[in-house]
């Protein structure tokens, strides 16, 4: 049994070696199973679309682009293995991934293997504070989002705010980023706690929050819980305004909460292509709709798409797949390029520069509108 297994392992290795480098391989590490499987599925769709498009236009450096997708299972240990696997497949760059702690488990592996990594959903601050040469991200950091959220909260003139997170790395980070500045501005945080995600009944949480008497509830978790909170707050007849972080938005949110409950819900988010004037955004949206029948539902899959476009542009411009040259190009020469989510430049840490976040609000038709 073990011998056959060993033999199989050896075969895998040999076939892996036999592949000649006749394509430019770009990796995608995405959560295809586990709790964020829906995000991963869409990331894969976006990248497959963009890769096919690029190949139709002749590929990169005269070669076809080959997308190599691997599952990070929404979990750190699986991600470390997925990263090891991608490094052995000869990828020149990797897009991904979604969760911050999941990305963290893969960072050193890609860095040691000299592969450019462009994360699309990992907003935790510390990821880019470790001086990793090949790490970039197309999503802004939590502190960036925190600033925009604090401004938005101040504008609502609420004096007492409840902050609710879900104890995930991302949600807790954003909640912390918002809490301190609010208190500095004299706004009282009357409630600060975490709900347990993946459940269907949050009435106990809502009842307790209601008891604290906030004038605004800021929820930093994910959209499925946001939908339930809005719906159940309405059923309870509690008419407090809710505001959310960028993970609370998904095109499904209206369906999850119902049109009535979602009216007046506001959130900060990098804009979906729909809300951007650029030609690329419009063309991408049309192509995506044509191929998959609906618009992309999450901003993060589009940010993964931006990651892919950044890599493709860098390879085409720098005329190489060498990681050092690519990273150098991205940090120094790649400035204000048009992307699906606005313009992109990177700073020396690999973080995206510029204000990406916008403030949106739902109207009574269940449509979102950009707020000034």
């Amino acid at each position, binding site marked *: 049994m073990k011998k056959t297994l060993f033999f199989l392992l050896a075969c895998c290795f040999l076939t892996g070696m036999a592949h000649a480098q006749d394509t430019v391989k770009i990796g995608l590490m995405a959560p295809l*199973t586990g*709790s964020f*499987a*829906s995000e*991963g*599925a869409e990331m894969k769709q976006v990248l497959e679309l963009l890769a096919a498009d690029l190949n139709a236009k002749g590929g990169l450096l005269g070669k076809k682009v080959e997308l190599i997708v691997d599952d990070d299972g929404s979990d750190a240990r699986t991600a470390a293995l997925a990263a090891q696997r991608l490094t052995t497949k000869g990828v020149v760059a990797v897009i991904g991934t979604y969760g911050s702690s999941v990305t963290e488990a893969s960072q050193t592996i890609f860095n040691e293997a000299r592969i450019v990594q462009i994360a699309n959903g990992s907003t935790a601050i510390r990821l880019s504070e470790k001086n990793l040469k090949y790490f970039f991200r197309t999503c802004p950091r939590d502190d960036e989002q925190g600033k925009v959220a604090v401004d938005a909260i101040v504008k609502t003139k609420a004096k007492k705010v409840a902050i609710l997170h879900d*104890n995930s790395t991302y949600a807790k980070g954003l909640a912390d980023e918002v809490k301190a500045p609010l208190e500095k501005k004299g706004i009282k945080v009357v409630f600060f*706690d*975490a*709900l*347990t995600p*993946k*459940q*269907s*009944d949050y*009435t*106990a*949480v809502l*009842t*307790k929050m209601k*008891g604290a008497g906030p004038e605004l509830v800021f929820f930093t978790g994910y959209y*499925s819980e946001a*939908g*339930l909170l809005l*719906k159940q707050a*309405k*059923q*309870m*007849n509690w008419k407090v305004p809710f505001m959310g972080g960028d993970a609370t938005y998904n095109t*499904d949110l209206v*369906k*999850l909460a*119902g049109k*009535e409950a979602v009216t007046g819900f506001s959130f900060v988010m990098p804009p979906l292509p729909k809300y951007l004037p650029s030609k690329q955004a419009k063309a991408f949206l049309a192509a995506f709709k044509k191929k998959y029948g609906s618009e992309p*539902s999450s901003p993060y899959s589009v940010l993964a798409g931006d990651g892919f476009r950044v890599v493709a542009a860098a390879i085409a411009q720098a005329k190489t797949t060498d990681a050092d040259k690519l990273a150098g190009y991205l940090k120094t020469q790649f400035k204000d390029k048009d992307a699906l989510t606005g313009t992109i430049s990177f700073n020396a840490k690999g973080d995206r520069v510029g204000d990406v976040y916008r403030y949106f609000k739902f109207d009574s038709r269940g449509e979102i509108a950009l707020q000034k």
Partner: protein
Amino acid sequence: MEEFFQQLTNGLAVGSIYALIALGYTMVYGVLKLINFAHGDLFTIGAYLGMTLLASFALHETIGPFLGLVVLALMVMGLVAVLGAIVERTAYRPLRESPRLSAVVSALGASIFLQNAVMLIYGARFQVYPEGLVPETSVDLFGLYVPVVRILVLFVSLALMAGLYAFIQKTRIGTAIRAAAIDQDAARLMGIDVNRVILLVFLIGPALGGAAGLLVGMQYGQINFTMGWTYGMKAFTAAILGGIGNIPGAMLGGILLGVIEALGSAYISIAWKDAIAFFVLILILIVRPTGLLGERVADKI
């Protein structure tokens, strides 16, 4: 005080669903001494089937909301029951004579299989029940706002539980189930077809689980493929809390667990809610090692 009663109703609503699912665990355990880990996923499938049937037949629109939902519930319960029996046939029956823990691993495998099957069929996104199925309003009960749908769900689950209890206690088949739970060999000698009893248990348990899935779908509106894992774990905890194998125990355990969770998050901490629930469970088991209503089983000599 008002907040206390509000939290109590919150707990009751969640607890009644736990209780309904816990019945499936406890019945199977009673007869086979097997923890059916796939039960939570049958609950999920009930929720998804309900959504599909609603979308494809729209019965509540053609034959009236009340009758439509009753027919829908019966269809869901029937389909999930059949699926439960299939799971028993394929994953558990071949292991009936083998070590008990082997069957547990087979159950875990079946659970992983079903969960991923749902994901592949329906996709990993959250799915949504059609709007306007149940009234969205709340009633004012002595100053407490209670959504109508909650009262409905509470009554339906209580009715199902009462029906099951009467069935087990008063009918001949129910007596046979109880006999098989006490001693399979003796029951066989008394002329009871134990295989049929087991089949029956695997029809009734999943049917109730499927009904619970439908209720969750209608009440909360959103379902996803991993919900069976969370609800299943809670329901299993509830079954143990009440004394596994004991039908009134599962009901009591479920409702108690819901109330503990609600009051725990109200007066201690929301983030520690699940930890509080498990902590209370452990305390109860230290005092009463076989759960609240479980009978003390003497060791064989």
